């Protein structure tokens, strides 16, 4: 394994071990997701709306709000006790640092998104049948794009004096493609449509994720420099 990948891996491992020990972010995101599911259950009138028509939208919105809660705090802990300076001063390239942070956040958010899928499936009585695998894949692709974009802007908003309140203003307009393709695809899959019908959308979601990761890897160094 070459040095670059090993550097990425070390930081990913460090973040995940830290998360496994403190369980700070995963606990808040998981609790948020389940409780949002409970509230959503009361916010829709099941006599006029079929749950499987709105479930996809609710799943994605829960992911976005929950993800903002957790991923938005990526640099918070480290910025507080000055550990971020230490990581930045180490010889690790900044793009490796970004990729590592994105990967660690991705693992975190993906776990939460699978939890959301399970809980909402239970709450709204969804029967995914053979499409379960595809929904799991689509959630993964969408979560990757989301995490890359939010990790970059989390670094930006941590550096401002508005902090996390600035994050939604910056990322919500940029997340529109993810919401449209993600919800559109997931709704169709939940309603039992074949995967062929949504393949183009999944590709667009993938292109969005790749562009977000690439842009973040290039631009991250300018956000954290000095």
């Amino acid at each position: 394994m070459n040095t670059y990948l090993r550097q990425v891996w070390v930081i990913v491992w460090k973040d995940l071990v830290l998360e496994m020990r403190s369980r700070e972010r995963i606990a808040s995101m998981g609790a948020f997701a389940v409780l949002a599911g409970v509230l959503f259950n009361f916010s829709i009138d099941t006599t006029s709306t079929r749950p499987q028509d709105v479930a996809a939208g609710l799943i994605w919105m829960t992911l976005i709000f929950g993800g903002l809660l957790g991923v938005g705090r990526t640099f918070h802990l480290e910025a507080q006790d000055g550990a971020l300076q230490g990581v930045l001063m180490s010889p690790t390239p900044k793009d490796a640092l970004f990729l590592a942070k994105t990967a660690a956040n991705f693992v975190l958010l993906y776990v939460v998104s699978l939890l959301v899928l399970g809980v909402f499936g239970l709450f709204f009585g969804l029967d995914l049948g053979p499409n379960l695998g595809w929904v799991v894949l689509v959630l993964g692709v969408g979560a990757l794009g989301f995490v890359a974009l939010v990790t970059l802007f989390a670094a930006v908003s941590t550096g401002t004096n508005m902090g996390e309140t600035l994050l939604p203003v910056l990322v919500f307009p940029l997340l529109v493609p993810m919401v449209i393709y993600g919800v559109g695809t997931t709704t169709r899959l939940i309603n039992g449509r074949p995967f062929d019908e949504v393949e183009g959308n999944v590709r667009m979601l993938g292109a969005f994720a790749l562009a977000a990761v690439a842009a973040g890897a290039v631009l991250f160094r300018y956000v954290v420099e000095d």
Partner: protein
Amino acid sequence: MSTAGMRRGGTALTLLGLLGLITLYWMAFFWVPTEVNQGVVQRIFYIHVPAAWTSFLAIGFAALASGMYLWLRDERLDRAALCAIEGGLVFATLVLTTGPLWGKIAWGTYWTWEPRLTLTLLLWFIFIGYFMVRNATEDPEKGKRFAAVVAIVGAIDIPFIHLSVVWFRSLHPEPVVARPDGPTLPGDMLLTLLFGVLVFTVLFFGLFLFRYAVEGLRAEADLRARSAA
């Protein structure tokens, strides 16, 4: 170009743009024939489309200047990006107000989630985000870098937003100029529209140079204040 040169250029271009604007108003009100299907309300088109073009020109220009700023770290590039974003915000506001005025007559509703209108709304919020990031940063150098990142990522995201909102729903009239089989718009209307695009572009660059000269003077004033202190 010196700051004084900027101001002279800005004045000349702005005056030229204003002259053009008067001509455009004359053309749009008296010269161009009324469109058959939509009637008189179609005339909004001659300012709506040029304003939209100008706001997208602004984000493209700002993203380019921001990218070059991150690379070369020349203060002038950052100032250019800031001024272009401000102009973009002005013209995007025009798109978002003239669009609904037209839509109320043509579609019977002020707002629809029509792709290009949605895209402009999101662009407007990207412009707002640019200013918020800049103003919320204590260290100005940091604010410049953050704002540059916002402009670049915004510009990269625009094609994705465009494709996705088009896929989501389309109600907007089909493109009438940029089509593979040539424009479908009758000659007089096309001429008025293209003239409108030209006038708005000239106005944008004229006021942009003016705004840029102000930023140059401000930097000079800050420098003097610092050396005096």
